């Protein structure tokens, strides 16, 4: 007889690592977003994918396979008798991931996920983010089978992000929620997503992502700006958490990735983009005149 999946059910510490739920119907871009979050993250975070019913299994698409998949097969509480959720959370607690991102199944109601994940021991629900495909939203809202679900996912989210549409927010989305924004199709993610899984220097968590603690801006540095100048600028401004982008030199383009602990300038990365993205803590402005 195979052994029971090992569980650590008696671990009662409630450290409150942030748990972010990414909801949204099939094709809304959840996996793409999580891959972008993984690419930008400095601290590893865990991903749990709940897509058991899906055909193209998102888990396989998640870069780096940091996570795990679990099944929450329906809304019936008695169906929670499964070793999976407890075992996976216990394992993730052991591995000391700084944060947990939960990719919801496309048909999950956002409100139910919020209540359900509030039971995840050792994690504290930070935010439910619902993605909506801005091209597909008229069809979804007209679909008898799906319209109540889509509306619920939008209404119950802390934040709604439109994807796949560049020509502004779809009017029907704007009418359904006041908390709608656009997910940029490329470039750095909105700061409110990124810092959710970063530890501060003392190893403590920042205050979650509910409060707008971070600001971000893209600047266009003056030509020939030396990487050393940028590095000094970062050192002089301890509130800066993250810089990423390109410096255009006379002969080459330098790709820069920087955090408080780490500065990397890589020449010859090709002219893939322009501009430098800054993310900083607090609500005061930064003076970028030394760079632009």
């Amino acid at each position, binding site marked *: *007889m195979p052994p*029971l999946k090992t569980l650590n059910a008696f671990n009662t510490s409630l450290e409150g690592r942030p748990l972010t739920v990414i909801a949204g119907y099939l094709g809304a871009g959840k996996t793409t977003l999580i891959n972008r979050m993984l690419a930008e993250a400095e601290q590893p975070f865990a991903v749990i994918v709940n897509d058991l019913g899906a055909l193209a299994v998102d888990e396989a698409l998640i870069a780096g396979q940091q996570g795990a998949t679990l099944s929450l097969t329906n809304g019936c509480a008695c169906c929670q008798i499964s070793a999976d959720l407890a075992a996976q959370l216990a394992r993730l607690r052991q591995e000391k991931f700084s944060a947990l991102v939960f990719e919801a199944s496309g048909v999950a109601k956002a409100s139910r996920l919020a209540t359900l994940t509030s039971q995840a021991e050792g994690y504290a629900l930070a935010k439910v983010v619902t993605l909506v495909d801005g091209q597909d939203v008229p069809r979804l809202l007209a679909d008898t089978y799906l319209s109540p679900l889509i509306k619920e996912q939008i209404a119950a989210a802390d934040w709604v992000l439109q994807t796949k549409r560049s020509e502004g927010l779809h009017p029907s989305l704007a009418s359904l929620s006041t908390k709608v924004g656009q997910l940029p199709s490329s470039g750095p993610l909105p700061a409110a997503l990124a810092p959710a899984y970063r530890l501060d220097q003392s190893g403590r968590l920042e205050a979650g992502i509910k409060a707008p603690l971070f600001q971000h801006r893209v600047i266009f540095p003056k030509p020939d700006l030396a990487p050393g100048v940028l590095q000094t600028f970062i050192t002089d401004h301890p509130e800066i958490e993250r810089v990423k982008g390109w410096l255009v030199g006379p002969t080459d383009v330098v790709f820069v990735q920087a955090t408080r602990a780490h500065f990397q300038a890589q020449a010859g990365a090709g002219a893939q983009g322009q501009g430098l993205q800054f993310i900083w803590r607090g609500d005061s402005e930064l003076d970028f005149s030394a760079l632009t």
Partner: protein
Amino acid sequence: MIEVYVAKNIVTMNPSLPEATAIAIRDGEILEVGSLESLSPWLIRDEYQIIERFQDCVIVPGFIDPHLHPAMAAVILPMHFITAMPWTLPWCEVPASLTPHAFDQEMQRICAAVNDEILIFWGHHDLWHGAMHRDRLDAIDADRPIVAWNRSFHELHMNSACMAQLGMTEASISGRTQIDFEKGRFFENGLAFAIQKLNPYILSDTRFTLGLERLKQVVHAGGHTTIGDMAVGLFDFERELATAVAIFERDDTPFRIEQVPHGAVITHNRSFEQTQALLSDLSANSTHRLNFRARIKLFSDGAFFSELAQLLSPGYLDGHTGEWLTAPEVLHEHILNFWQAGYQIHVHVTGDMGVEVALDGLAKAQAEYPRLMHGFTLEHMGYATPEQIERAKALGASVSANIYYLHELSGRYAELSVGYERAATMGRLKTCFDAGITTALHSDFTMAPAQPLLNMWVAVNRLNAQGDQMAPAECLNPNQALAAVTINAAKILGIESFTGSLRAGKRGDLTVLSDNPLTVDPLRIRDIRVVATVFEGRVAPIENA
């Protein structure tokens, strides 16, 4: 050696020769169903033995429950039952406890009699047993961990010792929804938290094995010779498979289990080709009693008991909506894949919108790749409209219904959930029979007791728990109800070629009853006793029958 069973009456469910008085079985196979006289051409050619022990009984085809969940049963059956309704369990008689005092007394009695690590009582119901509270459980025993699980299964209470043993403190619980620390109460999502803590205990090997051993007794006591595990992999595919072989593939198991894999689990992280390869492998490696075949279980909408069935307009009284277990377009893709590969597809549908999506999928599949005799089955079918039933017939679908919903829930759902009309017509089975749809009954055990005679009684009388008859126009006649737990149930599982009725060439699967369900007062159908079963020609008596 031929064994000839004689009985007061044999109901064959073979329409050409519906009644008989003797049945001859050799090597597990039925040679003939008829009378001692008609059997003589067989009997003069071989040794035979006439078995008279059932001569005052009625023999029907071995009962088939095409849809239950052994893994779920294995969790609940080791618990101590204290219930408002009396339960006859093979290992104990559970008396009716109708007052708070009676409930407490039962807890005390069991507490003194057993030494479980955590005492789990199941069956508490506020209406009879009064409000539960941590203090009340502490008063039963302050030192031993105790859990009182609600009849609905969606709520439980713990005493202080239990919370301490599971490491629950006010701090670790504060801020969680649907948990009341003071009362020791965990419900709905809060229950999920409690279950996470209890999992290592309720899913431990010892208890899980005990639970399956008890399920074996329950299945036998219900008079079954075949059951369908309608979602292998509900908890843990590998483990369920291995334990099932260890516990059921034994000579003392008087029934077979038809295994239908959980579609979402079996396709997970596999291409369709890989899934098919795995399923072919499982079918090829089936044992005598445990069989995989080209069958799959898929899911449309949410749980009926949780009011998460997806409803067409006008929806629920309170305006809430149901849930999808699978996105409609994904369900359609699964249906098409398995359809083209020739599978018999079973789709869990509870609400009429769930039915609609499943039928849309079937219609697409039929348009693309027409099939006959495909056995596509709507499972549960709590709510369905007459027009959907007509459409299901046109598309060749079958129905396997949980009619117990009507008994347990229709009174309450009329007031609180969907209004009288739809509550009264849940389980629209006469319409199915009239349309000529292959229609079966199942228990979905542990959602309903695994007692085919009880389900027949509900289908024939349509009486709810409050004693009101709901939509009498949908009552089945006793013959239809018996078909629904025998030959039709066999068709639902795709095994009608060898069981489900009594005729030459089928396996000797019989259920021996104390009375004839076709002629007894319909209100007495559930009082008929199951005396014994015969599984492939081997008698398995039922103790205390």
